[in-house]
């Protein structure tokens, strides 16, 4: 197992390096934005020269790595936050993103699983049809559509919730009731998709478990339907579901560009696109490294979690 884990981690770093290299080269190949004002163009050129952007890409890349390895320095931002360290650019925007994603998960995981269980238990009855229809709708419609609907009806028309996320200065902090209530609409918008996919997944797995032979055995040995379902069917059905939930947790650091834009969440969602549009190379690379790392690490955790949850699929386990 340890050997497998080490191998995966080494592979992860190799993949990270390849992706970084490709992204670095590609973003440097983009032409600088056109500036018609001569002095502004002159300053831009002076900055590019001063920062070594006119050197061969390979040389720039080596310098970039040297700075990371010797000083863990990913550089400064020039466009998104003038002279701000790229680490700060990301860090300052992480908390709102994490909070919203985390709340959305806490809301969607139990609801998704419960709906899935209900649908499986009432398979092919009207309850199942209602849940499945709602689930299909949630899966099919993109989250920004719910976002607009929620914002318009619950925010603007009914006035139940703030239309957009509140500011810290008006609420006194991220962990206040007022702030939380202003996050509810984006949380709901982010949750619907997750609820639907979890419900669908749970229903499918549980429905399969419920028809297994061991369920017959469980009933035969005297367990009630509820006992058999909870102790046997649900437990087995959770094996493929739990890794999905783990992956969801790993992804709470990634923001949703559209949801954050609609609800004015000062998160990381728009950072990637903005850094490309404004050619803020250092921010682009830092965001690339950050998200690639999270994505790759999440993959490893999910893969390993299968082994922990089900000894039958544990890599390297002695038979």
């Amino acid at each position, binding site marked *: 197992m340890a050997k497998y884990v080490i191998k995966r981690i080494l592979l992860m770093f190799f993949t990270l390096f390849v992706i970084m290299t490709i992204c670095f080269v590609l973003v440097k190949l*983009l*032409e*600088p*934005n*056109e500036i*018609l004002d*001569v*002095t*502004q163009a*002159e*300053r831009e050129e*002076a*900055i590019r*020269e*001063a920062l070594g952007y006119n*050197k061969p890409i390979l040389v720039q890349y080596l*310098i970039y790595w*040297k*700075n990371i390895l*010797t*000083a863990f*320095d990913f*550089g400064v931002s020039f*466009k998104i*936050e*003038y*002279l701000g360290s790229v680490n700060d650019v990301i860090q*300052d925007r992480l908390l709102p993103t994490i909070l919203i994603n985390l709340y959305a998960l*806490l*809301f969607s995981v*139990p*609801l998704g699983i419960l709906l899935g269980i209900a649908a499986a238990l009432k398979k092919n009855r009207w309850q199942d049809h209602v849940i499945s229809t709602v689930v299909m709708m949630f899966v099919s419609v993109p989250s920004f559509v719910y976002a*607009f609907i929620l*914002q*318009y009806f619950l*925010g*603007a028309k009914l006035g*139940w*919730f703030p*239309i*957009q*996320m509140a*500011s810290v*200065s008006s609420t006194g902090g991220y962990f206040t009731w007022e702030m939380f*209530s202003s996050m*509810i609409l984006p949380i709901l918008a982010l949750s619907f998709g997750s609820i639907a996919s979890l419900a669908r997944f749970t229903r499918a797995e549980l429905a399969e478990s419920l028809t297994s032979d061991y369920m017959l055995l469980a009933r035969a040995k005297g367990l009630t339907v509820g006992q058999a379902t909870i*102790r046997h069917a*649900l*437990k087995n059905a*959770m*094996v493929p579901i739990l890794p999905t939930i783990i992956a969801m947790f790993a992804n709470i650091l990634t923001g949703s560009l559209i949801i954050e*834009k*609609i*609800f*004015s969440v*000062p998160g990381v969602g*728009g950072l990637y696109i903005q850094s490309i549009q404004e050619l803020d190379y250092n921010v682009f690379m830092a965001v690339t490294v950050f998200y690639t790392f999270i994505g790759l690490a999440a993959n490893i955790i999910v893969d390993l979690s299968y082994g*922990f*949850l089900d*000894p039958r699929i544990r890599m390297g386990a002695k038979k």
Partner: protein
Amino acid sequence: MAMREKIFTEVKFVKLFTQKPVAVFLAAVMLCCLLLPVLTACNKKTSEDDYLYTYREYISKFPTTWNTHNGTTDADEYIQGYTEIGLYDITLSEDRTTYAFIDEMATGDPKDITSANIGKYGIAEGETGKAWEITLNPDATFEDGTRITAEDYVWSMERLISPEMKNSGASTFITGDNELYNARNYYSFGSTEEYFKINAETTYTDDEINQMIEDELLYFSFTKTPIFDTEGSFTVEGHHNIESQKKYYLNEDGEDVYDILYSKYSNQANELGYILITKENVSDFKTNFSVLSASALGVLIPNWYDLLSVLQAASPVYTKITAETEYTEDQLNQMVEDELLYFSFSKTPIFDSEGSFTVEGHHNIESQRKFYKNEAGEDVYDILYKKYASSANEYGYIKITKENFADFKTNFSVLSASALGALIPNWYDLLSIISYEESVETPFDNVGIYKKDDTHFVMVFVNSLTAWQVKYLLTDNWLVYKKYYEEGYSQQGSLTVTNYGTTSGNYMGYGPYKLSAYEKDKEITFVRNENWYGYKEGATNYHAGQFQTDKIVCQIIADQATALLEFEAGNLDSVKLTTNNLSKYKFSDYLLKRTASNTWSITFNSNAEKLKEIEKDNAGNRRILSVTDFRKAISLCLDRSYIGQNILAGSAAAFSFINENYYYDIENDANSIYRNSEQAKQSIVNLYGVEYGEGKTYKTLDEAYRAITGYDIDSAKEYFTQAYTYAKANGLYTDGETIKINIYNNATSAQLSSLEQYMQTQIDTATKGTFLSGKIKVEFKAQQSGRLESIAQGQIEAVYYSYSGDYNDPNGMLGNFTDASKTTLIECGFDPTTETFEVTCDFKGEGEETLSKSYYDWQKSISAGGTYANASNEVKLAIMSALEFNLLSAFRTLPLCVGTDLTLRSKKVNYATDTSNIFAMYGGVRLMTYNYNNGDWNNFCKDKNNLNYA
């Protein structure tokens, strides 16, 4: 056994999700979520500032720096709009119909003291309007109460145009009409000597080191020397400040070698921060730096002397010989002998003006190639390129030697003898002279700004300016707070930068409001700056009855739909509208429509040869775009009013590059709108062939002008047919070919998709029944950067863009289309330097005469220093309108709509006027008044019917 335990633990983990407590927890979470709406609806707390007047607005992007020296975006300038104020400001006139200047940080008008400075700053006898004395408001302070003096303005100007900072804001004072005397030289000047750090690969013997010490060439700087050779490396000081790195600086006795050297030598640094290595201190540096080399850092700093720098001559600078400079043959030969003359294909600008194309760039323009042909029909550029391009040095320059001198002379003479000769009179004007100074060494003392005393400073300009122009210029700011500015310094490569104005903590304003809260990407709050003179009764420039607003809360809302919902809920006091919102708010009493100075246009490539190159993509015919009738037909297909009202946010139709916001004599006549002049109207009437007078449909010029729509689908059909016939006859089109017109913008959008759809429908309608029916395909495409350059060089067939210009300079706007030295000239297939037209006018007050000049020459003739620069307005209008007519009648550029800004204001506030003035807009926060304070407004909003703005 262990295995069993492990499995048992994992099973427990799975059980977690199936046990009772977990189920209860899950249920509780869900219950909370369901109850939240009810709870939050009850959670309305009373506002603490009910009696204040708060203006709530939004911007879509957060400012990155509001340092007036280098902020470049609208968002960057947003904060300055409240926290800073110019020496003068522009507000609405008392009757609210036009603009008026108002004294702010200055008191009284600027005083022309040119005559007192004759013989200085290049001022000659009899000149006026070059030196201006400004008297500061004695009550002006920074927001911390520190008094602002003339010294602050002079120091801030030095920083603004500093060569080491290369601030983008310097452009106002180093180029153009407002150039300060010697500012350009100061800005461009770089040291003739530079400190080059010894890199790790270089090795020196002791003798060599000693020799350099003797020659006083070796230096060290704690604050400038990078610890490693890489770009962006920490300085030695920066590296030493990192706690984890300090271990490398410890010698055998546990002492920090950095601290040892710093305590001994840091006070010996010169003004640039470098300490000279001498016979006396060398052993000390050697001993202590050897500790670093011997540490784990030794891989990157193998030798003790790798942290030293060698003083050397700076990089060479190549200065192009200007058209005015004359050299004799002997002088040129001498320069060749001294190895001073160079030429570069890729670096030398073809003309002397700023932003000119390089020789290579110019040669790439198809329409310009004819100037490069010698008598034998050979391209002189190609001849020289083939022979000498490979001998360019690392800077891209080719040395002119005795051997190649004649070759360059012969071939460059072809250019001088061509129509370009007006701009390149001598063959050697394309050569550059090498030097090791970037510019004439100019101390800041020689720049045209100086302090007279604490409340007076003088600005000396290169050009003569009027008092109006000076006041207008001084509505801009350059003042910064020295302490925070200097504290924010850092070095990015060779550039000094400051983080001044990037957070509320490193910024100091001096305007009517100050930053009170600042939340990245979310919200900015301003409150009254109580130290501002404008609020203090009895202070100079006290503004009684103005600035009623107590607080401004600005949210960052990137999504316009969200902003509109907030506005409709009463949470914002103004909102920008889009075309989609117009159907609802078209007739709202609260809708404000303001036109900007830009005009959205489409420019076509009209060069058949270049268009043929584009056809290599096999997507369809492009050459037909070179036919004027074809372009005119497209123009006539487009109902600009429809586009403006339904596609481009309620914009007004545009029939020219110059819209209603340009004034030809703003200084003397506040109503001198160019577009309203008789000449300007006549040019558009002529363009569309509308007749007026007795017996005609339209009696007067005004009637005829007002009737123009630019839209005539029947005529368009005729022109398409004519274009088809012509194109077919001239091999520009073959029957059955699809015609593909890709129009490039920096991005695609829903708006452009609508425009694309509209154009396609209109063209299909106009071509129906002709041979071109269904053959023309229009598509808007995105090209984020370089699209203007691409069309100038004929690489693409059309672009969608807008140019804007100075409100008081309509001729400057025309210059975008006629000045060959500008990168704004993008009409490929048009040569403004050789194509001519005639103007009939009473140029000299001696009766009418007809003159013929090139487009370029006509536009220059009424620019500063031109033949008719001081002529009457009639002459200028005659030239401008003729220029405009001739440019438009080629239909290379189709103006579509005027840039328009639609705003909905809330019932909470009143703007000073609902009719925007291009200089003072709606009167701004200065003249804004309130119908409700915050408390009353909250009550007002409780009834949602009150918030109906439709």
